[in-house]
């Protein structure tokens, strides 16, 4: 169990001994507690978001108190212990909330010195404190540990805001690098994040969100739920409760995987979410959104300046919705007990959280404790608050502690996004080339993203509030004489909140791009141009320092740097002073970038190769911590500029995983050269965000320098860049690729008609043609007393088990809950649902009362005991050839298996398909009745394989095309490929689409383990078949492989001669695929490549039959459903040699549109010589219907 609990403030205030520093004599807000053992506990209302402030704050306390660093323990955020200092935002911790802490430490130090002086009989200024020991300076003959000074009684003193603090010149800890205290535990798995809290008796919860993913306001919100069908979870193990409050829906289970499964399966019906504007292209929706203008500055005369401009310039800059994209989806644990609520939460705002929970449950705030735990990094606000309230609702419902883990899809979908923004700038040059005017208008749709449960349960209004947050760094840093700055405040579109740099990033993108355009128009070096209008001396110093470090050379026009093959190089500059907080705001650290880029004119890829970044942070508490923050800002903002944009569907957020929202990867990370200006005598400034702010303009300016093309909308994805390069005549078109091979042209269109659709033809044909004459009626065979299992020898039963395995009986006849032979599995057809029957030994509902002759007739002729016809879903035409001995053994086996007395649901087809007797005519045409005849020219093994494949194994049922009447074709079409349950069953006759021939060894591996090194893994119904074959001895599997491989001899050549994998490594193929399907390429890189890229331990996708097939069915279905082979399929003794792999299902992670893009990319990338697939959308829609969700 892991149950972290901070002692409450009163524990410190009521301790027997020690020294505590509170806000005042009457205000018990606690800042510092010194303990008799010499330890110090310090309290801060802000929390550590991964920035290392836990360490920096401890440095400040240790410095001011003169105690060793490792004696200071920081308590951050936990509501029952720390001061209320508001949310951890806007880089304020060091700049704002650390101040009272430093004062408290100074006050305590002064008090300690006074006490010690009293003991020593001297004046305080004759004493000094070093490493927690107070000693007399001259003579050094007296010393006392501070722990001793606070022993014996508890003293409480009030924080003195005027108590002098140490001069910077006396600092020994602050300003030096300090190793973070949390990293050793994090590097060894000992640290407890909120995800790691485990309480006694804790249950696991999951939530189910409404369909308006990522939108939290509007009339429909909180009124969307139509129904929750609790029966949909009947029979699932471990379910404790289903909780519904308004539009809040959650499930609670004993185990996490049970809760996850329940959330997937729970049948929840919602109203259709209303259509939204296309926020994937945010410019128009933002312009169309009602807003109120707020003028922040209006100097000089802008209109007159614009009129006088010699060359007016009007530009618009568009910033997309982006996401925090925390690596760990949010998680929380809640515990209700006797009207008291305790939550373990990763919230950034513990006090807000406490208030929200009190509001949600209509309880006093002090009955709510928020234990703040670290979570995955967040750079604004993610779903940490939402999930905390979710856990509380579920815990209240079940009366036990509940842990709720959001899914990746929920975190991506519902986190409050960084808002999109549109900025218009009008300006121009005066006659001297200076800025004639600067008219800046910015549009920002933010909101406060109230905790979701409050809205979903109706506790707070679904009407969104408007915040004034678009004004961060809206005032440009340059001295423009005629300047007007307007912000258009507007209600939210998508759910949004602050995200690192808030509106300052888009605003600075516009400022710093526009001034670059002015410089370019004036034919002045952009750095020089800025310096003319910068007035802030610290800014000027910084610009000089950074450009000098980067070796900046003046440039007055683009494309002056060298070109190397297809690659153009360029460098750009940008500067910003991040001003945050309520307007006019507070300045954090100054930052400037020189970005070096390489633009590939063939692929459109932009590489940021190097960033020289300078920062003036004032006094740096922990310089190494500052350096790491700068690195983090540079890398994250580079990612945002090059790659990041939230995509939306018609109803909500579409980017629900890392393929739909790719972020920077290691190979793309630039070299970073950090210049930190030493300013030890200046106030410490927030460093958590500043270095992000110049990023976009620096990179865009560098791309302009490289290409002469100015991008004003982010992100700079390769397809967008390539299109612009083409327009500019700079794109390099690829060389036409020599084809590595050509597939034989399809000689025929294989019937896509399934068994079932073919039945339509059967019925029609039979009705019209009058096949009814073909003896449709058969007599019933009378029931018998169920045979005594003792009748059968163990050897017969064992043989029967193998026959059942070879026949894969339980693949179709398994119960819906997995009970063997219980029947009921539905086979959806256009005409109704065919249900597999119960074939257990139940007398009432199975085949327990069937005599052997009845059984044999059903197996060989498709006639049930009662004389009715079975549909040829039951592959009796194949079984007809089974040997008598095998059928008898199978009968014995079936009769000795458990009786399942639940009736399977009946097949209910509509007329005419419900007329079973029509099957008689069908049988007259197609049913076989011949026993299998071995081929004396072939080996015994081949013949054994032929027997298994052609009779018991009934491979042709799926792998042969069916004729118009639904019968498996014979002759040349035998095993020439068919369809089963929506999956394409590839040809086994050696003419399949696989680029590499199937060798006997590959077939053996595939049938035995579900995977073959050169071909990939079994999916869909075939994976169940492989599982069913597990009891067969190796000799039988080998025999089947021998038989099937003999077809390859007739077909194409064996694998080793094939050239296909060459395309795997062909740069031309890779680039061409990316050009053809750029969106699919991005999804592949983010969602698939971790397992499927070259060098991955599993079979190359180039070899996968599915990607070379005529239709994309199997690819689509595999993406939707995932694949368990070989992880779950290989027999235990075969597993050692296989990779431990399974493919997750992406049905709830990727939209149909995304899958379409992905499928197109896969085809182009891995089957480059095959024609593009047609009807991809229809295939996806069909498969989605079959798979659900």
């Amino acid at each position, binding site marked *: 169990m*892991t149950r972290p609990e901070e002692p409450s403030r009163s524990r410190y205030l009521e301790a027997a001994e020690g020294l505590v520093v509170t806000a005042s004599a009457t205000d018990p807000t606690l800042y510092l507690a010194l303990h008799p053992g010499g330890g110090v506990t310090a309290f801060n209302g802000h929390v550590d*978001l*991964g920035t290392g402030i836990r360490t920096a704050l401890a440095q400040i306390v240790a410095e001011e108190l003169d105690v060793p660093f490792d004696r200071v323990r920081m308590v951050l955020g936990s509501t029952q212990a720390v001061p209320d200092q508001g949310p951890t935002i806007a880089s304020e911790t060091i700049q704002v909330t650390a101040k009272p802490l430093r004062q408290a430490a100074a006050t305590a130090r002064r008090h300690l010195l006074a006490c010690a002086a009293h003991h020593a009989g001297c004046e305080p200024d004759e004493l000094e404190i070093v490493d927690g020991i107070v000693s007399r300076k001259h003579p050094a003959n007296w010393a006392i540990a501070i722990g001793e000074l606070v022993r014996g009684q508890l003293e409480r003193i009030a924080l003195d805001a005027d108590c002098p603090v140490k001069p910077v010149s006396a600092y020994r800890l602050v300003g030096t690098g300090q190793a*973070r205290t*949390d*990293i*050793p535990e*994090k*590097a*060894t*798995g*000992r640290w407890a*994040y909120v*995800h*790691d809290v*485990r309480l006694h008796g804790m249950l*696991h919860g999951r939530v189910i969100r409404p369909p308006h993913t990522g939108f939290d306001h509007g009339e429909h919100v909180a009124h969307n739920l139509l129904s929750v069908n609790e029966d949909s979870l009947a029979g699932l*193990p471990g379910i404790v409760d289903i909780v519904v409050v308004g539009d809040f829906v959650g499930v609670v289970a004993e185990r*996490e995987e049970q809760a996850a499964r329940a959330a997937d399966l729970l049948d929840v019906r919602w109203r259709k979410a209303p259509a939204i504007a296309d926020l994937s292209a945010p410019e128009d929706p933002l312009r169309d959104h009602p807003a109120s203008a707020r003028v922040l500055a209006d100097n000089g005369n802008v209109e007159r300046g614009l009129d006088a401009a010699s060359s007016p310039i009007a530009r618009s800059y568009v910033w997309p919705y982006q996401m*925090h*994209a*925390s*690596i*760990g*989806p949010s998680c929380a644990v809640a515990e209700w007990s006797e009207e008291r609520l305790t939550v373990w939460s990763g919230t950034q705002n513990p006090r807000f959280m406490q208030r929200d929970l009190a509001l949600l449950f209509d309880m006093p705030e002090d009955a709510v404790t928020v234990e703040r735990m670290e*979570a*995955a*990094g967040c750079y604004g606000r993610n779903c940490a608050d939402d999930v905390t309230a979710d856990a509380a609702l579920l815990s209240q419902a079940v009366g036990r502690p509940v842990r709720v*883990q959001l*899914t*990746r899809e929920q975190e991506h979908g519902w986190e409050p996004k960084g808002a999109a923004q549109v900025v218009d700038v009008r300006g121009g040059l005066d006659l001297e080339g200076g800025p004639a005017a600067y008219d800046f208008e910015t549009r920002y749709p933010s909101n406060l993203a109230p905790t979701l449960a409050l809205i979903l349960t109706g506790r707070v209004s679904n009407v969104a509030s408007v915040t004034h947050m678009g004004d961060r760094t809206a005032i440009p840093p340059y001295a423009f004489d005629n300047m007007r700055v307007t912000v258009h405040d507007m209600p939210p579109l998508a759910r949004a909140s602050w995200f690192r740099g808030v509106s300052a990033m888009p605003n600075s993108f516009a400022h710093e791009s526009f001034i670059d355009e002015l410089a370019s128009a004036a034919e002045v070096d952009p750095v020089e141009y800025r310096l003319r209008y910068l007035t802030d001396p610290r800014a000027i110093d910084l610009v000089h320092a950074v450009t000098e470090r980067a070796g900046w050379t003046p440039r007055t026009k683009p494309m002056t740097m060298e070109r190397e093959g297809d690659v153009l190089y360029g460098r750009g500059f940008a500067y910003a002073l991040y001003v945050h907080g309520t307007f006019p705001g507070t300045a954090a650290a100054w930052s400037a970038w020189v970005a070096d880029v390489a633009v590939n004119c063939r692929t459109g890829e932009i590489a940021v190769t190097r960033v020289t970044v300078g920062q003036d942070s004032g006094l740096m508490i922990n310089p*190494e911590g500052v350096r*790491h923050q700068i*690195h*983090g800002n540079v890398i*994250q903002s580079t*990612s945002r500029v090059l790659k990041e944009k939230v995509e939306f569907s018609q109803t909500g957020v579409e980017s629900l*995983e*890392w393929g739909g929202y790719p972020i920077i*990867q*290691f*190979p793309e*990370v630039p070299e*970073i050269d950090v210049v930190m200006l030493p300013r030890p005598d200046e106030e410490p400034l927030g460093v958590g965000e500043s270095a992000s702010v110049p990023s976009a303009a620096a990179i865009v300016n560098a791309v302009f320098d490289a290409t002469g093309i100015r991008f004003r909308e982010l992100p700079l994805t390769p397809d967008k860049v390539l299109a612009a390069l083409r327009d500019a005549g700079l794109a390099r078109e690829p060389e036409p690729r020599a084809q590595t091979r050509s597939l034989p042209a399809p000689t025929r269109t294989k019937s896509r008609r399934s068994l079932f659709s073919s039945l339509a033809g059967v019925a029609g044909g039979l009705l019209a043609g009058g096949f009814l004459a073909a003896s449709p009626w058969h007599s019933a065979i009378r029931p018998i007393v169920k045979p005594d299992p003792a009748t059968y020898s163990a050897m017969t039963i064992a043989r029967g088990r193998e026959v059942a395995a070879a026949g894969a009986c339980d693949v179709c006849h398994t119960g819906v809950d997995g009970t063997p032979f219980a029947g009921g599995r539905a086979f959806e057809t256009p005409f109704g649902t065919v249900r597999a029957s119960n074939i257990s030994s139940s007398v009432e509902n199975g085949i327990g009362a069937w005599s052997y002759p009845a059984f044999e007739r059903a197996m060989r002729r498709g006639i049930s005991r009662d004389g009715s016809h079975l549909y040829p879903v039951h592959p009796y035409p194949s079984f007809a050839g089974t040997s008598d001995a095998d059928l008898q053994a199978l009968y014995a086996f079936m009769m000795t298996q458990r009786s399942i007395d639940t009736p399977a649901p009946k097949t209910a087809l509509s007329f005419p398909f419900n007329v079973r007797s029509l099957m008689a005519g069908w049988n007259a045409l197609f049913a076989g009745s011949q026993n299998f005849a071995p081929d004396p020219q072939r080996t015994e093994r081949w013949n054994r394989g032929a027997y298994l494949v052609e009779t018991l194994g009934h491979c042709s049922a799926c792998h042969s095309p069916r004729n118009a009447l639904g019968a498996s074709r014979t002759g040349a079409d035998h095993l020439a490929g068919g369809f089963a349950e929506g999956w394409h069953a590839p040809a086994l006759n050696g003419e399949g689409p696989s680029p590499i021939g199937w060798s006997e060894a590959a077939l053996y591996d595939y049938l035995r383990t579900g995977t073959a090194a050169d071909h990939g893994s079994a999916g869909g119904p075939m994976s169940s078949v492989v599982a069913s074959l597990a009891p067969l001895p190796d000799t039988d599997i080998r025999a089947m492989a021998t038989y099937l491989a003999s077809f390859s001899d007739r077909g194409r050549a064996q694998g080793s001669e094939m050239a296909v994998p060459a395309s795997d490594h062909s740069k031309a193929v890779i680039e061409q695929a990316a050009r053809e399907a750029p969106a699919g390429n991005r999804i592949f890189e*983010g969602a698939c*490549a*971790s397992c499927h890229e070259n060098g991955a*331990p599993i079979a190359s996708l180039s070899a996968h039959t599915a990607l070379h097939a005529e239709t994309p069915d199997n690819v689509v279905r595999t993406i939707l459903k995932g694949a*368990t082979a070989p*992880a*779950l399929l290989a027999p*235990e003794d075969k*597993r*050692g040699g296989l990779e*431990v*792999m*399974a*493919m*997750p299902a992406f049905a709830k*992670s990727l939209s149909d549109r995304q899958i379409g893009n992905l499928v197109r990319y896969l085809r182009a990338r891995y089957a480059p010589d095959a024609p593009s697939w047609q009807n991809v959308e229809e295939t996806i829609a069909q498969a989605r219907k079959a798979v659900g969700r």
Partner: protein
Amino acid sequence: MPARSLSLTVNGQSHLLDLAPDTPLLTVLRNDLELNGPKFGCGLGACGACAVLVDDRAVRACAIPVAAVEGRPVTTLEGLGGPDRLHPVQKALIDEQAAQCGYCLNGMIIAVTSLLRRDPDPDDAAIRSALRHHLCRCGTHVEILNAARRAAGAMRERTHAGEVE
């Protein structure tokens, strides 16, 4: 899938558990064995936060069913080393202060460990490539790359000194 008895070997210890065979390995490690090292990140095998070593190869515990590792040794971050006996890769990450939030750290350490077992002297491109599908959102890449280089050096020195890992 119905539960059955499964035998697992994790960090050298044997465990017998009654589980549905398709339960994600990650869930079992975290909830049944109470190991905090491997983290839930995406459930789709994409981000790498859940990585563990199976037969010395880094795999994604969120996306593989527990039954797949029956009879195969699993090593988690905890099994590599503890605070008193750090694995060289862990030590390098600490020495380089290669964490901000630290949530991805597990995957980074597992991936670097696996890389160095295959290639004791990787160049920068090889390290970046090995870490390519391990996502870090805080932007700790520079420190992680430095740590990987440092770990490679430390492990080579140990090998020269004849120590056996």
